[in-house]
């Protein structure tokens, strides 16, 4: 094996080149060897010396090659003709799109155009797309991070100064108490189970707060089955107990935080009996959780969408930061805050500035001085200063006509955005919808232009995993048909819309060099470093810097270097159950599928094991409605209805039902009410009703 991760071997017959690759699914960033023979991927082998996964792969990783040579791949640019599409040349497509974008810019202004970046694309591609959007004249650039960890980015930036996971995933093995809240990592980030399992065998205590009995709960020492949307109340209750019993870390609070007195005053007003009433969790269990978390030598908090996808998402994250700061559990091995990020490059897409409020390196678009510095690097006198539209706001603006065009790189909002019927209306209302993707997704079906894109194995570039670890994926095979890498398509669009000098991009490598120059945290993240086994972890402020696996060891990333405690009051979810919709619907992932399912629903191995949409309902709620396990049912909310199979299971509590969002239907039901700061929708709470359908 060479340093860049290539070796040739005859492991299974003819000469196959085995090349180190990064799994294209979740944010864990596992590595494997892809076997290349005559421009095709012919095999997958485990990479036991990879530091993230030690060779392991979840079922999705094992199926990663199934989508590559799939018969459904898009091979040619398409243009809408009536209800169908017609094949056109790349020149016709790119020139046609550029002309219409420039027309809309001239007639309605640049803010009438929106751009969706992709957490499945490389850092270089996301950097180029957000740069193009801003040079085009708008901050209407966003991506699915808005739908998953926008609350984390905003909440941790306010409290700790950096919206990212503080410790490497494997560090959980060194924790003495693991507090999991709103994360089903056994299904969504299966590799985390490896390190949690190690910690448990060492005697660590596992507390899981989740309305459902997920496989994480199977291994828990203590399960807090709180009601969806009651997280702030639960966390305030835990902090109340910590202060009452003097379990807070006075030395840490004095030396490293601000705002303690205000937080203490606000917690004094918290009544534990009221917390039990709101959360449904007995006071004794809250006390036990608080004591275990605060007293352990090193405690870690792991969370995901169960925390973030609420209208109180930012409040939830700030509450977690408050808890960690009170107990002094941050900045040490085994002690930290671990938001588990969802996509292979969602951390990177955020780092690159594919967000409507941040330029590259989390420079606020409203910061005139730092914005001017980036403008100078991009050869323009000024960049747009107003915060742009977020993902869900773009769909709303498309509905009202404020947004006239949407350029989508590898996202599928027709499956993944909340209130899908409304999304469809918005997308249909646009003058121009462009979708570049690897398959004709549900969103691409509505497009005016469809551009065939290369997937992970067909292009080079870097990906940043949930640990802030940046790893290089080399190009293994050529794209099928006329498909092109996303960076190449975006660069062409940039040149055709007036920025020839800024988008003279022969390959991804010079783009990474430009990122090194623009983003201080990425300064030393060179291509050579990212090619090494396990890559390099930002912040890496200069060439030769070893990288920074653990954040906040001596100082927080805030301006004053302190962790900011901030009192948070409990607010209920946007939608409450009532007589017509008496159940609470919460949504999430399953282990066998990935997000919009455009890849995993095309895998035979995965689809045969999980075929279609289902709803989990408690035995009590099923009996009340006369429903049987396996029966066809209709789930309805104020926004629409979806038919699926009922799974009667005690894994869900009475009053709560669960649906995965990988299949069409689930997001017809979800609520597009937003967190006021992070603008993340409340996927986790929707009032619903369920009725049986005739057999």
């Amino acid at each position, binding site marked *: 094996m060479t340093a860049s991760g290539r070796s040739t071997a005859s492991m299974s017959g003819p000469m196959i080149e085995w090349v180190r690759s990064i799994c294209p699914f979740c944010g864990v960033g596992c590595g494997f060897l892809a076997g290349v023979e005559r421009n095709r991927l012919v095999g997958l*082998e485990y990479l036991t010396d990879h530091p993230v996964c030690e060779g392991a792969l979840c*079922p999705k990783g*094992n*199926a990663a090659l199934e989508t590559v040579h799939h018969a459904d791949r898009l091979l040619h640019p398409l243009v809408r003709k009536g209800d169908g599409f017609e094949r056109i040349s790349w020149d016709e497509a790119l020139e046609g799109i550029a002309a219409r974008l420039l027309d809309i810019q001239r007639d309605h202004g640049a803010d009438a155009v929106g751009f969706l970046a992709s957490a499945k694309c490389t850092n270089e591609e996301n950097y180029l797309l957000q740069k193009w959007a801003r040079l085009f004249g708008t901050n209407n650039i966003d991506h699915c991070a808005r739908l998953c960890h926008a609350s984390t980015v905003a909440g941790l930036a306010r409290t700790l100064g950096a919206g990212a996971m503080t410790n490497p995933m494997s560090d959980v093995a060194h924790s003495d108490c693991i507090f999991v809240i709103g994360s089903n990592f056994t299904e969504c980030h299966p590799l985390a189970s490896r390190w949690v399992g*190690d910690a*448990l065998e060492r005697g660590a205590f596992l507390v899981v707060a989740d309305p459902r009995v997920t496989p994480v709960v199977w*291994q828990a020492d203590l399960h807090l089955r709180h009601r969806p949307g009651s997280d702030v109340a639960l966390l305030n209750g835990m902090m109340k107990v910590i202060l009452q019993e003097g379990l807070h870390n006075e030395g840490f609070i004095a030396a490293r935080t601000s705002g303690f007195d205000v937080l203490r005053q606000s917690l004094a007003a918290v009544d534990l009996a009221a917390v039990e009433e709101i959360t449904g969790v007995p006071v004794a269990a809250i006390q036990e959780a608080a004591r275990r978390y605060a007293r352990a030598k090193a405690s870690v908090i792991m969370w995901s969408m169960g925390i973030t996808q609420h209208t109180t998402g930012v409040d939830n994250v700030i509450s977690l930061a408050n808890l960690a700061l009170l107990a002094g559990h941050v900045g040490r091995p085994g002690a930290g805050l671990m938001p588990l990020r969802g996509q292979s490059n969602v951390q990177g897409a955020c780092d690159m500035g594919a967000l409507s409020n941040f330029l590259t390196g989390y420079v606020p678009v409203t910061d005139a001085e730092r914005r001017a510095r980036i403008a100078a690097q991009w050869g323009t006198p000024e960049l747009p200063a107003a915060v742009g539209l977020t993902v869900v706001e773009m769909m709303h603006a498309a509905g009202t006509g404020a947004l006239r065009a949407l350029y989508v790189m590898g996202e599928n909002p027709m499956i993944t955005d909340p209130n899908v019927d409304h999304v469809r209306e918005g997308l249909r209302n646009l003058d121009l919808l462009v979708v570049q993707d690897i398959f004709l997704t549900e969103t691409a079906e509505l497009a005016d232009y469809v551009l065939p894109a290369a997937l992970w194995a067909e292009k080079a570039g870097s990906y940043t995993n949930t640990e802030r670890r940046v790893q290089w994926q080399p190009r293994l095979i050529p794209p099928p048909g006329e498909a092109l890498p996303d960076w190449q398509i975006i660069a062409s669009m940039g040149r055709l819309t007036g920025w020839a000098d800024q988008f003279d991009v022969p390959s991804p490598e010079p783009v990474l060099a430009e990122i090194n120059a623009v983003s201080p945290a990425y300064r030393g993240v060179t291509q050579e470093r990212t090619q090494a086994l396990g890559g390099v972890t930002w912040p890496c402020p200069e060439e030769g810097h070893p990288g920074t696996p653990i954040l906040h060891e001596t100082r927080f990333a805030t301006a004053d270097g302190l962790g900011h405690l901030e009192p948070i009051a409990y607010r209920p979810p946007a939608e409450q159950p009532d007589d017509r919709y008496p159940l609470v619907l919460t949504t999430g992932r399953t282990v*066998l599928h990935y997000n919009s399912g455009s890849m995993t629903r095309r895998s*035979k191995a995965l689809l045969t094991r999980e075929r279609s949409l289902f709803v989990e309902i408690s035995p009590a709620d099923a009996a009340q409605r006369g429903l049987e396990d396996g029966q066809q049912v209709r789930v309805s909310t104020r926004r629409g209805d979806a038919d699926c199979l009922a799974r009667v299971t005690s894994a869900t509590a009475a009053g709560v039902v669960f649906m995965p969002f990988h299949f069409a239907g689930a997001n017809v039901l979800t609520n597009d009410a937003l967190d006021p700061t992070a603008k993340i929708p409340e996927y986790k709470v929707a009032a619903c009703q369920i009725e049986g359908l005739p057999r």
Partner: protein
Amino acid sequence: MNVLYLNLTRCIYCRACEVACEREHDGISRVAVTLVDPRQPVPVSCRHCEKHPCLEACPETAIEAAPGGAIIIHTRKCISCGLCVIACPFGAIELDAGGKIAEKCDLCEHRQRDGRLPACLLTCPARCIEYGPLDDILAVARTKPGATFVAAMGETGTVVTLPDRSVPGV
């Protein structure tokens, strides 16, 4: 003599072993992870028993106890009588889709031939599976929380650790 070790206190029912096995064996998995109670998954596959009723039941010489400890079905000698399927106390042998050939875990014989470990072991995200000499496995198993026993016919075979909550009477 190498044996498999399944530490089921760690199993998360992700079924990566199934998908990996299927990929290594021409689209047919020889392991099926099953929930034996609502919170305890158990992978059902060949235990490679020391006493092997499948081999005894085979009217041909299609089943071999290989020197390394693996029980191997030589599919070319299989006459699809199905007796081994009936004899297996673990339900780990099945006839293939066409009802022709008995199939079960071969401990990735084809991988071990060129020095690679079984796929299920390498792929398991939760690190539930190990493979090695019996004494080494028992030494490891003794350090794990839970109840450890040999789940096989005879004194050796597959060593399994289950969480205490899943073991009746504990």
